[in-house]
């Protein structure tokens, strides 16, 4: 029982980071039909930036944090949107898919080549003293990951449902042409989505950095899990990505502990395949109309 609870908490903790990554991913898809295959690298790059500011330059934590989010939103949000997406948006889904695959390789191998192929350690953000509840031992890190992720998702949800800009985003997600006709500046909103996604990725990066080490290739696994989470939960809903992320985290943690750690990546994938075959719109998604 003790093991079970501890594994559950660990799973939810890592799952909440996957969920953060997946939500941005879903937002991009909704407003701009971008399947961002570089989503994992969108988390890795801010993690490296954080190492640069915090460890190499020895800036205070708060300043390093703000600088990381700034760098991420500028480079991965604004710049990627302006250089890549604006031009490819009109050409359908496939060119963007291939372009983001290229972008992911570019970021990954640039970090490896021009920075380091080794894993960089990252100082713990939260106290290392564990929390004891009877026989159950939980780390501060795990609790704070869940709380912070929850806070960010809550704020995002408020933004989308309560502000004019959020309503405009929903309108663009539902029908881009109609939104444009109604006078919404679609291009500006797509930029906003990219900036939001980059900010979410930066938060995920700061949370994941102490859990994994910071290495150029951790984005492969992260991006995949965000994608699994999005598909399992439902590609067109934020709540779906949230559910999917938590589910992937928990399933992965339990299967690694109880079934086989060698095949830990395979179990989330099996759920994914089952969902695709049985309920393609996702566990908590909404059916999309036929569109090509």
């Amino acid at each position, binding site marked *: 029982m003790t093991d079970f609870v501890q594994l559950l908490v660990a799973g939810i903790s890592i799952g909440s980071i996957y969920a953060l990554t997946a939500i941005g991913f879903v937002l991009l898809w909704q407003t701009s039909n971008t399947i961002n295959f570089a989503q994992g690298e969108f988390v890795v790059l801010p993690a490296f930036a954080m190492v640069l500011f915090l460890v190499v330059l020895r800036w205070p934590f708060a300043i390093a944090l703000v600088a990381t989010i700034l760098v991420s939103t500028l480079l991965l949000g604004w710049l990627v949107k302006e250089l890549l997406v604006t031009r490819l948006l009109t050409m359908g889904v*496939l*060119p963007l898919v291939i*372009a983001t695959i290229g972008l*992911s*390789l*570019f970021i990954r191998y640039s970090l490896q080549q021009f920075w380091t192929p080794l894993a960089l350690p990252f100082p713990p953000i939260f106290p290392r003293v564990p929390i004891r509840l009877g026989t159950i031992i939980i780390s501060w890190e795990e609790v704070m990951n869940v709380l912070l992720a929850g806070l960010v998702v809550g704020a995002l949800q408020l933004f989308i449902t309560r502000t004019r800009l959020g309503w405009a985003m929903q309108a663009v997600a539902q029908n881009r042409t109609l939104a444009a006709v109604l006078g919404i500046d679609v291009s500006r909103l797509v930029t906003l989505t990219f900036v939001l996604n980059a900010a979410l990725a930066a938060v995920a990066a700061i949370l994941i950095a102490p859990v994994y080490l910071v290495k150029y290739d951790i984005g492969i696994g992260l991006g995949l899990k965000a994608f699994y989470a999005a598909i399992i939960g439902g590609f067109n809903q934020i709540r779906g990505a949230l559910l999917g992320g938590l589910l992937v985290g928990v399933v992965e943690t339990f299967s690694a502990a109880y079934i086989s750690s060698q095949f830990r990546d395979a179990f989330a*994938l099996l759920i994914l395949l089952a969902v695709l075959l049985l309920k393609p719109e996702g566990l908590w998604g909404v059916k999309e109309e036929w569109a090509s």
Partner: protein
Amino acid sequence: MIRRFLPLGVLVFCALLPLAFEQYKLYVASLTLVYLILAIGLNLTLGYAGQISLAHAAFMALGSYPVAILGPRGLPFELGLAVGVVLAFGWGLVVGFPALKVKHHYLAMVTLGFNIIAFLVLRNWEGLTGGSFGISGIPRPAWGPINFASDRAYYVYILGWAALVVASAYWLLSSRWGRAFRAIRENELRAAVVGVSLRTYKVMAFAIGAAYAGIGGALFAPLLGYIDPGAYTLDRSIQFLMMVVMGGLGRFEGPFIGAAVVTILPEVLRASEGLYLILYALAVVLMMLFMPKGLVGVWDWLVISSKSRI
């Protein structure tokens, strides 16, 4: 007349040229042919039928491992190849089946997942695949007294299969199948309305592409005589994707250009692996932005501008 036979002549010249090469260059030439076969398969699936596949390396593995497992036990190479092609085709049907239900971005994910599972199985099923140590001592094909053990003879053997694959792909694409594939790529709904069976053609486009990957994989195994799971990773699948995209999606000439550029260029540049991957990645992004038709577009442009000059 000249326009028709010039490319063919250039092709024959390029195919026979490596016979004058030695060891390493001959190896690169053989590898290029193997990759050409694989790229033709992916071009069929992605370029013509518009079904994205990121599992091409997994299908390649399905071709390689039967050869690697049966060959050292004294069974003929062609038997291993046949088993591999059947396996690749069968799994192509299985993986292609979700293509009926989901749109291409999901398909990218399903196939990518398949490649990851395939890699995990190859690495962990040690009894059959030798795990991460792989399998060594894979013999090259032999027909009674004639054997293809030398590098040059094996190049000729691969060339024979490549010619067969090119010819069959050409025949397939100019038949009603090719037209159906293109119709589906351009507009599924319209294709279905005019009577193209989406179910049959979508799954078959996938399975046939996979079968070609099986042939390429089978020929790949004896090339070095050693294989391990590291040759069949997701990165390799992405490399095939780059080949097809760089050459020119949905163009018959595409895979020739793509396979040649992606295989030979890094060997010539001799840059470190990381650096050329960066360059490739950049090239893919730039290509999508400014040359979505691939390098074949440059060729077209040269032909057109030379015509208008006359």
